[in-house]
Every structure is written in C-alpha cells, then in structure tokens.
C-alpha cells in the first residue's frame, strides 16, 4: 500500500516537473536560438532553422560574427554610451528621488500634500503621451557648457539623462519604504541636534539598502532598454545607445549572423546581471505591486 502511494506521488511529481520544464522551454528558446545563431555562419544559420539544430551548438562554430559586427558598427561606443547614460541616470535618480521622499515623509512643510499628489498623479501619464512635446522642449532648452551658452539639447548625453532622473514611481517606492522606518530614530537624532542632511546621510540612507536596490534595478531596466526617446532625439552616431545602434545592421543585405552577435552582445550583460542578482530583481518588481 505504501509503495503504491509512493509511486503515485512520484508520478505526480514527475508530471509537475514536466509541465514546469515545458513552460520554461517556451520562455527560453528564442534566447538560446539567439546565442547559438551568433556563432554560426549565415548560410548554416538559415539552414538550421528547419530543425532542432537551431538550438544546438553544432556545425561550423566561430566568433567571426562578433568580429564582423565590431567592424560594421562602433559597437564599443554604443555600449559605452548606454552604460554611461544608464549609470549616471541611476545614480542621480537614487539621490534626487530619495531626497524628495525623505522630505515628504519626515519633514512637514507648506504645500507638501499638494506637491506629493501632483507627483503621484504623474504615474498615470504614459511617457509616450509626452514624448512629442518633450521633443519640442528639448530642442529649445538652454545649456551652459564648455562652449558657453547654447540652445537645444538634441544630440547629447544630457537629453538622454536629465528628463529621466526624477519620476513618480521611484519617489513612491522611497516614500513607501521610509514610512516603515522607525520615526523615533529620526526624532532622537533631531533632539541630539543633527541637521536634516545629517539625518538623511547617517540615519536613513544606511537603513535603505533594499529600496535603493529596488529603485536602481527598475531604473536600470528602463534606461538600458530605452528606444523611442533616443530614436527621436539622437541622430549623431557619437551619442547613440545600443538599441538605436541596431539600425546599422539593417541596411541592404542583412547579415543575420552579425545581427545575432550584436543582439547577444547587448543582451548577455543584462542577463548575467539579472541571473546574479535574480532575487533582488524579482523582489524589486514585486515591491511595485504592494499597495500601501
């Protein structure tokens, strides 16, 4: 009797794993195809799509496609641009948004309620609805740089960074997190004569590891994967990010091996980053769903 239920249990377990694995294959096969194809010459790549060979490292494998991709487009520059824009935006966003949230949670000042509700209301404005007027504004904005006062932000790093530093979601995440910090801690520091800036730096920030990770990951994903905005504000090669750089691979004769190599190059770093920090990534998405 015991063995029968044991077998039954084992069978059900096997079915569960089979279902889970089948679904996993559905989610992973295009990525496997991408990486395997990037190692094959064009002719073999296209021939292999007719069989399971498309997903296997078989045949004439080499890194030639990667070499050719670097020759076709300034891949290094595009990756550098994306990293720079993403890195700077993430850091500035964490600083500026956490400062604002600190003020909303721990300080009281006239107009706070109104300002916070305006910020939260922006959550229902999709970026796509403001992209076109933002393009007009960005084309006229002044900037003081090495060459004095200039107008127009198009074709620059700043046009890809500054508009994305402050956003409602990041501020909201910090506000939610700060609310759960013990208020007595802040009052005690205040009694001891600490300034607000000191409290922010020495008391609140050291306790904010989880929310900093959450906000950084969400911002990173948005910024690294930017497409629409750089497409319309950056025409010069020297400021292009990776997603817009793809256009180089779609001229007359598409060399699919090179396309796959480029896609792998710009995707594998993100996937590695994700797999290493997997729990933090998933926790950060989950925290956007917890209503407070």
């Amino acid at each position, binding site marked *: 009797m015991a063995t029968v239920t044991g077998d039954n249990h084992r069978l059900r377990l096997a079915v*569960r794993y089979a*279902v*889970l694995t089948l*679904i*996993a294959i*559905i*989610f*992973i096969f*295009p*990525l496997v*195809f*991408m990486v395997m194809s990037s190692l094959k010459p064009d002719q073999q790549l296209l021939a292999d*799509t*007719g069989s399971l060979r*498309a997903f296997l490292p078989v045949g004439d494998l080499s890194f030639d496609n990667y070499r050719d991709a670097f020759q076709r487009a300034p891949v290094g520059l595009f990756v550098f641009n994306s990293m720079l824009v993403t890195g700077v935006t993430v850091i500035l966003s964490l600083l*500026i948004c956490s*400062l*604002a949230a600190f003020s*909303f949670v721990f*300080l*009281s*000042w006239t107009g706070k309620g109104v*300002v916070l509700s*305006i*910020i939260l209301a922006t959550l*229902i*404005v*999709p970026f*796509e*609805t*403001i*992209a*076109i*007027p933002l*393009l*007009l504004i960005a084309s006229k904005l002044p900037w003081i740089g090495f060459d004095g006062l200039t107008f127009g932000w198009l074709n620059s790093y700043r046009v890809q960074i500054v508009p*994305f*530093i*402050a*956003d*409602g979601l990041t*501020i909201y995440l910090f506000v939610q997190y700060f609310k759960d910090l013990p*208020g007595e801690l802040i009052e005690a520091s205040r009694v001891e004569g600490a300034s607000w800036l000191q409290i*922010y730096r020495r008391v609140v920030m050291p306790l904010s590891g989880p929310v900093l990770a959450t906000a950084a990951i969400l911002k990173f994903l948005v910024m*690294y994967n930017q*497409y629409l905005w750089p*497409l319309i504000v950056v025409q010069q090669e020297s400021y292009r990010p990776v*997603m817009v750089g*793809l256009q180089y691979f779609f001229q007359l004769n598409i060399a*699919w091996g090179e396309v796959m190599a480029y*896609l792998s190059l710009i*995707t594998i770093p*993100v996937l590695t980053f*994700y797999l290493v920090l*997997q729990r933090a990534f*998933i926790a950060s*998405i*989950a925290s956007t*769903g917890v*209503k407070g």
Partner: protein
Amino acid sequence: MAKGTKLTQSNRAGWAFALPGFGLMVMFIILPFVFAIALSFTNQRLISPNPTKFVGLANYQQLLGLGTITLESERDENGAIVYDEDGEAQFPRLRGYTRNNPDYPRIDGMREWFSWGNDESRTYVLARDVVFMKAIVNTVLFVIVVAPVQAGLALCLALLINQRLRGINVYRAIYFMPVVVSIVVVSLLWRFIYDGNDGLLNNLLSGLTFGAFEGRDWLGSPSTALGSIMVMSIWQAVGFHMVIWLSGLQTISPTLYEAADIEGASKWQTFRYVTWPGLRNTAVLILIVITMQAFALFAQIDVMTNGGPLDSTQTIVFQAVERGYGKQDISGGSAISVILFVIVLTISLIQRYLTREKN
C-alpha cells in the same frame, strides 16, 4: 512618523529637499503634458518659418472626423439594378461626393473606412483620417485581448510557481527572463520565429502535422500580423505580472488555507473563497498596469511591421511618433497624445469603478 511637531516643522529644509526632484518632474513631465494639450490646438511644427497659430479643434477634427453616406445602386432605364461582370451591384463613385461637392460639405475630403449594405443600397462610413481610425481600432483590440489573457496567464504561472518544490526558484527565474530583455531585441528574435520562409514557427507546425501545415508569412499577412504581435508581447511581459501576482499570493495568511483544509474545501473552492478574494487589490493594479503598457504599443510595431501590412498593425503611439517626429508635425502628434491620454484615463477610471471594493 510624527506630523507637525516642532521637530519636523521645517519649510525651508522641506522645500530644499523636495525641489530638485519636483522641479525636474515639472520641467520634463508636467510641462510637456500641459504643452501637449496646448500645442494640440495650434499648428506648431518642429521647425517652421511661420509663426505658430491657434487653430482651435482643427487637429482633432482632422484626426477624428467621421461621416456616413448611403448610396443607392445604379439602375438602368427600366429601374433594374446594374451588375458588373463579377455579379456585384454597381454604385456611384464615392469621390463624386467627397471631392469638392458643394451639396456634401460635411464629408468633403473624407475617405471610405468600411461599408455595408445590399444590392440596392450601401452605407459607407467615412473618416477624415482612415489610418488613424485603424490605429485606434488596432490598439483597442490589442488591449482587449492582451490585458485579460496576459493577466490570466500570469496568474496561472504564479499559482504554478507558488508551490513548494525543489528547484522552483530556477523555474521562476526562467519565466521572468524575457522581462529583462529589451523589447527591441525580443521583436527582432521573433521576426525569425514568424518568418514566412524559414521561420521557426512554420517549421515547428509543419513538423507537428507531418508536413500538412503550409507555411505562412505571419507578419506579412493582414489577418495574422496583429495577432502575432499580441502573442509575442504576452510572452515578453507575462513574467513581470506573474511576479506581482506572486507577491499578492504571499500576502494571504497561511491560516486561511489551513482553515479551508480543515473544512475539507476542494482546490477550486480554496481558490474561489480564499485565494481570489485576497488578490482583489493585486488584480486591480495588474489590470491597470497592463492596460497602460498595452496602450503604449510602439517598439514592437517599429521593429517588426512599421504599421503594415495594409495598416493592420498601425497603433496610436506609432501614429503619434510618425507625425510628431517623422513628419515634424508637433501639433498633430500632440493631439494624438492627448487622445491617447484621455482613453487611458477613462479606461483606468472605469476599471477602478468596476473593481471597486463593495461597500
């Protein structure tokens, strides 16, 4: 948190801390939003020698103008309906009514969107901008299909992944993986899957049916292009919403499940009376988030179809970009943005109302 005590009352510090963030948001979110509304009533272009003029509702009339006309079929001198060689009844040409016809000023410049009728009379629905009308219909269709299917599949995955099994975290990590990959990359990869000649999907289907399935060009045919993009979009984003459902599932107290178990509830009853009521807030949030994301459909279109074939994958945002950026018609693009915002706002209000807490 102490509110309004002497210790926390600090106007100067409060504003100083909040201002950098708030200032940037005013400059780059609120101002463009107000601009979008204002510009939509003008004839602003990105670069133009002429001064900007107020044009009232002209942009909206151009985008949303609709009209109908019913025409009687052509008859010969005996009063019999005239048929062509294909057996179709003959109707007078629409152009005669929509091009400079002083008797029909309301439909001047409009084009046929669709029509219905019989051999005796046909009713034509005309639009001033047929492509934009198709873009609205496609976008709404996309949302109506994607929002419930994606939310439902995400819930199934969340329930599947929310069990105690060795290695379950590996599966969760894989299901979530497409979310971190750029939609641009995903769209390119799926062009290979949907390809008409050597596409992976055609090869798979032909293999499964032992060659009976004849390949088709999934993105190249008006009847399958939008559906193909829907499937891919769901594949890419479903992991995101799975994780949100999962966090909702984990807020449900285990004692409720124990109680259901003691009462001898079936699996379905447990889901119906314990799990689902506990997911109410999550459900509202997920529907709103998916709806907003779905309305913003752009990158997939730009990479995969450019709105074609035959405008079957035109979308609202694609039109906004094509006008505002491609044709440098900022005011037209802004009017589209405002229309999109009004639709999104209306739908999230309706969703909130329909899913509001009872009492």
